[in-house]
């Protein structure tokens, strides 16, 4: 099994290298590159073309792109992602400040999505064909279709402005985490609920369910004791794969709620053309994303031996 997991993770290396190269090349084509902007901030048009040239030389921006990339990569693996052109802080420091807020949000959102999704999906499956089923699935569809930035504003309007239950924006403390986490989790709760329902309905037709029913177990008990466990494999896969979407979701939600997480820092950097910061944030998110996907694949193999053993094809 270790062999299988190792192989899964080795496959991540070319992908990560590819992503970093892609992002590096794309960002190097961005109009209004760093030194020009920095020059403007440092003293406006006072910088002569010669000075600008010297400046670019010092930052290594005149080297061929592959050279720049290799230098960036060797610095990056040593924990140096460059400095922000706005605050001159180390990008690694900026990320270290922002990361906990994003992780906190993502975990809270995911927990909520899985909990609510399992609950709604199971209820819908147990009461299949009734109004409870239809109602649950409509809620799931709405959750899946609602634009998160809008849902965030509506929740703020109702729970912060009208009812005054939660602070509107900012970070720190559980009360500031609730609304962002709900916004983030609701979309995936809808997806997970639909999946859980479909999975349970499918499993209910299997022989082992007939056997369990024949020995006298009631439907709810069969679902709780047997069916749910067998459905979990595909739920784990989807949750793992959805984690990436969730990470993307944090980008938007952090911006709506003004939480200084990675996503907010990234969009700020993008708007200010602070490339080192943007690059650092994008690479970090992509690293987490790729690792989660690999972990999901590995976990899938661990949970379901058929995948691991038949995986040669």
């Amino acid at each position, binding site marked *: 099994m270790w062999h299988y997991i190792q192989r899964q993770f080795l496959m991540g290396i*070319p*992908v*990560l290298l*590819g*992503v970093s190269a*892609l*992002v590096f090349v*794309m*960002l190097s*084509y*961005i*109009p209004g590159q760093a030194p020009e902007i920095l020059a403007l901030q440092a003293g406006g048009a006072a910088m002569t073309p010669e000075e600008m040239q010297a400046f670019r030389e010092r930052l290594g921006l005149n080297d061929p792109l592959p050279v720049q990339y290799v230098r960036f990569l060797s610095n990056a693996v040593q924990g140096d992602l460059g400095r922000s052109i706005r605050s001159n802080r180390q990008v690694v420091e900026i990320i270290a400040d922002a990361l906990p807020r994003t992780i906190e949000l993502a975990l809270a959102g995911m927990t909520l999505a899985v909990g609510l999704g399992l609950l709604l999906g199971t209820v819908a499956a147990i009461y299949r064909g009734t109004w409870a089923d239809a109602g649950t699935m409509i809620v799931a*569809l*709405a959750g*899946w*279709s*609602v*634009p*998160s*930035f*809008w*849902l965030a*504003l*509506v929740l*703020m*309007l109702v729970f912060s*402005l009208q009812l005054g239950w939660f602070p509107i924006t900012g970070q720190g403390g559980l009360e500031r985490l609730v609304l962002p986490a709900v916004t983030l989790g609701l979309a995936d709760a809808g997806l997970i609920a639909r999946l859980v329902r479909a999975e349970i309905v499918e499993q209910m037709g299997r022989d082992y369910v007939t056997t369990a029913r024949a020995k006298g177990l009631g439907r709810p008990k069969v679902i709780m004791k047997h069916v749910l466990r067998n459905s979990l494999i595909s739920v784990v896969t989807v949750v793992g794969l959805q984690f*990436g*979407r969730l*990470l*993307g*979701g944090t*980008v*938007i939600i952090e*911006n*709506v709620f003004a939480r200084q997480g990675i996503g907010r820092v*990234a*969009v700020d950097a*993008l*708007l200010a053309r602070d490339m080192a910061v*943007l690059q650092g944030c*994008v690479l970090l*998110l*992509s690293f987490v*994303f*790729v690792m989660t*996907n690999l972990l999901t694949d590995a976990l899938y193999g661990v949970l379901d031996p058929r995948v691991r053993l038949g995986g040669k094809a």
Partner: protein
Amino acid sequence: MIEPRAATLAPLPAVVKLPAPRSPFALAGRRVLRSRGGLLGLCILLALILLAIFAPYISPYDPLALSPPEASQPPSWRHPAGTDRFGRDILTRIFYGARISLRVGLISVAIAGLSGTALGLVSGYFGGWVDAVINLLINILLGLPGILLALVILAVLGSGLQNVMIAVGISAIPGYARLIRGNTLVLKEQEFVLAARALGVSDTRIILAHILPNVLAPLIVLSTLGVASAILVGASVSYLGLGAKPPTPEWGVMVNDGRNHLRQAWWLSTMPGLAIMITVIGLNLLGDALRDALDPRLRV
């Protein structure tokens, strides 16, 4: 001596009653119309298209002209969705915004669907190093959450609606490529493809005439759901200020416009957001119904 076969057969009866031939797609269409969700989704979509096309005839207001005396009015009979801070009728702007959102959805999906299908067909059919290269490329694109990839592409291209379509389109390519590749891998081992190859049919013709028609069903389903997610992502980046720009009646821009006035004028942000949600629900309903109709086992 061999007699022509036809001569030995009994003459056909004068009238043969055969059911009218129906293509699988016509059958699927009927099934969609018979499903409640599919019908509802289709109605929402049709209504939206009609509103988008006939916006100037339906609404007496202009989507852009300022009218300061009517600024920030709550919903009323005159202005069913209220007016914005510049006195423009929000419902009118939502109708015009439907044009933009539908265009963003359709063009992004066209970009993603065409390139993704081409990549998937080629990589799945030829295998070998072609497959290895394309697959690595797909995995690299999949290595970034979709919205983040779209943001980075927008950072390079600059903001603007056209660039939103390109960015959203590119960021959706890997999904299509993966789906089509998977289907092609299965199809190319089937007897009818092997037979075509044995007969000496060219690779191009096998791909276009034999494999492509067989991947259309999942492609249609993914594209319908894809329009929904493209509209969502497009509105999201516009909300963040990286897509369409303020006077444009784009739904995400309109939601952003009311963001700082929630307390005083809740309708500014709420109404355009509802439009996005209804549109996306309609497309998702239609996509789900299409999936059930075309093949209940399909999992896109």
